[in-house]
């Protein structure tokens, strides 16, 4: 499998990263190199092998359902690039 212009555009859209036209060519070649290299895994027989999502095998526990209020909205908004009246501000998204 190899990545072409349209795949890079699609992936960049999914990742929400703008790729400039002059970056595209080199990125395609880098990504193809990396994917070509990881393609080595195809050689491995993984028939009947369970995928391993985590090495953690202890049982999870349920926390007590106690409501906690750790942070104020002021604290939470403090790092926002733009906020107003206790809200995060974004460009208009509804027509």
């Amino acid at each position: 499998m190899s990545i072409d212009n349209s795949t890079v555009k699609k992936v960049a859209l999914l990742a929400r990263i703008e790729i400039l036209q002059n970056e595209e060519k080199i990125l395609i070649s880098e990504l193809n190199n990396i994917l070509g290299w990881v393609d080595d895994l195809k050689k491995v027989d993984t028939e009947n092998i369970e995928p391993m999502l985590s090495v953690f095998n202890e049982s999870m526990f349920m926390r007590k359902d106690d409501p906690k209020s750790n942070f104020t909205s002021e604290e939470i908004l403090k790092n926002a690039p733009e906020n107003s009246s206790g809200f995060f501000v974004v460009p208009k998204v509804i027509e």
Partner: protein
Amino acid sequence: MTDYSSLTIQSAISGLRKKDFTSVELTKFFIEKIQKNNELNCFITKTFEIALKKAAESDERILKNSNRQLEGIPIGMKDLFCTNGVKTTAGSKILENFVPFYESTVSKNLWDSGAVMLGKTNMDEFAMGSANTTSFFGNVLNPLKPKSDKNKRLVPGGSSGGSASAVASGLCLAATGSDTGGSIRQPASFCGLVGLKPTYGRCSRFGMIAFASSLDQAGPITKSVEDAALMLQCMASSDEKDSTSSKKKIPNFLDFKKFNLKGKKIGIPKEYSIKGLNENIEKVWKNGTEWFKSEGAEIVEISLPYTEFALPTYYIIAPAEASANLARYDGIRYGFRSNEPNINSLYSKTRAIGFGKEVKRRLMIGTYVLSAGYYDAYYLKALKVRKLISNDFEKAFKSCDLILTPTTPNVAFPIGEKQTDPIEMYLNDVLTVPASLAGLPAISVSAGFNNEMLPIGLQVIGKPFDEISVLAAGSLIERFREF
């Protein structure tokens, strides 16, 4: 002013107890030394005021004999750990001005033990790198130089490069690091130090900026194995804020001193004699096996047949997890924002400007391998190979107690090298990544030098939650090496 640069944590603790010096004196010494060594670029944020205040508090406690474990010990904190009220950037422009209003569990545990923060150490952006060259705040220099060319500057390794360089140049007594595929062990090796990655789950990941959640683990970078045990003792905890932090009892890691390696089996994996392994490193590895033999341990050859697939597996899983974790940086709630009239261009411009090249490359790979049509072929396949790699270790540990390998295939390299081809940089981690995928504890201890007097580290990998044996083996290396 007395020179405190060669102190270890352990000797500083005893000096503070005996009132040879105060924590304020120590702290002032390191502050001055950090300022004199700005060119190394070890710190992104310096917190000298906080340090002096905390040191004075520690001195009061010492006077009252109510010392905690790391009372008054000045350390560096990797800029990946969120610190309440202190800027935390993860080495990225996108978090250039981020000031957390909560404390990571690992840093909280250290402050509760009396440690004093000198500053936040530089690192590869979001811990993605092996040379500390991807930081938005500039690369870090290794204080060590090759014998034949004192003008040549080398990388400190990465991603915990600021931490390693700071400890190696005596700017602090120890520092924290985080290890996803080798980010503690590799820089420790490049800077002639001890780097310990504990078992996955030993330290809480709460408040540690996420890279690849199934692999990320905090650990110390120190000058000695004993210091590593002391630091880990204070960093580790079971934490309800991290559902993957282990509830297993935390032992007294200093018990490694009582641990006898006589009769223990030390596995030497034949697959780690990789092509391109530096011959000096191979020699130090051989010396290492002799040291274990002379201590009465038995050397056994073992096989970890899937080793060669560990790095490609890692470079699917880690970017995949990163692409999910880093989706939160959208320019809305915190961090850098590129102001655009339209929400989609706001997202994509913010991320295009806010992330550096290597991070974007990995996010693209991660997004691709998780996308419809490629998920099974790449991501699912990698998860299955991860299982095989983990099985390798499980089988190997039936015939041995510990595994001894080199930490890196090569010594520290000059700044600017391995920059053209990303894969060349990735190969730095070929010997550290397998233990990461299996979640095992592993230490790197400086064991020798090449002809240029650049340090060579040996890695010891242990069974899950058996940090004590790993530390004991590290301490053996420390005793037998000739420096």
